[in-house]
């Protein structure tokens, strides 16, 4: 028997695959979502079971994480809004970070169902991984982005009201009064329409940025793994491990960066629309 072709997962399909054959809506990336959530909850609850005054170990890690996130986002959003928005933004950051890093665990995305060749332990082509990283599914990132936009609308309406939001978007700025205000109004209405459109495109850009980065990283890792598949036998196993190694560290960095960028952009969007109370001479 020959162990020539043991490399699997040449390509990742854009749509996630169903986990059970008859339930097409329950995909393999949803399974990983449930696993990641359960792991985070179990670890967090277990390490804060007995709270000590001087923390050490896992409790220290969680306290440091929450405190760093709180001070960073308070600097962006402002002291008034931070109690309302902190749970959502911190949850988004921690979940996206854990999900991105869980996708790098060996076995996620590489073990699955495929077409067998003859021989022991050899797969010619894999078309359905058993577990698939969470953010490689556009449904997940779109869901997170839309959920954030829903809460953005709710918080904006709570803070400044619908009239205040429309005034802030469409009103001529710069303290003009009288005739000049009316003269500049059509121009600012046009600008307001463009700004409205750019607000409406925010869920698309948030979701596509995260999806594109993680999906491209996963495809890159798969391509790099199967690059040396046609070499003779010891070399193709060595290349399976060695070639994706630098890209693995790149994916670690990209995972942290994309989680941070998602959460920070959410905070910046909230600041842009609610940060104008109490200032302004008009």
């Amino acid at each position, binding site marked *: 028997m020959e162990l020539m072709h043991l490399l699997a997962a040449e390509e990742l399909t*854009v749509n996630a695959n169903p986990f059970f054959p008859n339930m097409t809506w329950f995909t393999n990336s949803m399974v990983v979502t449930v696993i990641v959530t359960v792991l985070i909850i179990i670890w967090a609850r277990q390490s804060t079971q007995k709270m000590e005054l001087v923390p050490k170990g896992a409790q220290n890690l969680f306290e440091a994480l929450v405190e760093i996130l709180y001070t*960073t986002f308070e600097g*962006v959003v402002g002291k008034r809004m931070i109690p309302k928005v902190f749970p959502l933004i911190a949850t988004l950051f921690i979940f996206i970070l854990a999900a991105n890093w869980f996708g790098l665990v060996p076995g996620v995305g590489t073990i699955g169902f495929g077409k067998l060749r003859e021989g022991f332990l050899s797969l010619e082509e894999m078309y359905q991984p058993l577990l698939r990283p969470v953010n490689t599914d556009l449904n997940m990132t779109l869901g997170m982005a839309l959920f954030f936009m829903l809460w953005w609308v709710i918080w904006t309406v709570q803070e400044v009201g619908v009239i205040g939001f429309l005034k802030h978007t469409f009103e001529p700025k710069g303290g003009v009064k009288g005739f000049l205000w009316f003269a500049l109004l059509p121009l600012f209405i046009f600008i307001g329409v463009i700004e409205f459109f750019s607000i409406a495109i925010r869920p698309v*850009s948030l979701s*596509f*940025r995260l*999806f*594109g*980065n993680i*999906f*491209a990283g996963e*495809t890159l890792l798969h391509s790099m793994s199967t690059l040396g598949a046609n070499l003779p036998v010891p070399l193709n196993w060595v290349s399976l491990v060695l070639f994706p190694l630098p890209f693995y560290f790149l994916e670690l960095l990209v995972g942290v*960066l*994309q989680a*941070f*960028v998602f959460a*920070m*952009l959410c905070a*910046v969007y909230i600041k842009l629309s609610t940060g104008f109370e109490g200032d302004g001479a008009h």
Partner: protein
Amino acid sequence: MLDILPMWAEAANIGPFLPLAFAGLGASIGVGIVGGKAAEAVGRNPSAFGNILVMAIIGMALAEAIAIYGLIIAFSK
């Protein structure tokens, strides 16, 4: 006459990757400009490193997103 570039791309069999090339060019230049300006700003005022870092990361992520759109289009056609 105006579709010389798409014709060349099709002839060289790199059809779906042409938008990705342009998007990558623009995004790289954009990210490089943001990074250079951030380095310059830290040089002028080293104590503002934290604020500059946050703003630079946001700017780079927004500039890089366009290249990601190009990547998705290239790999889904």
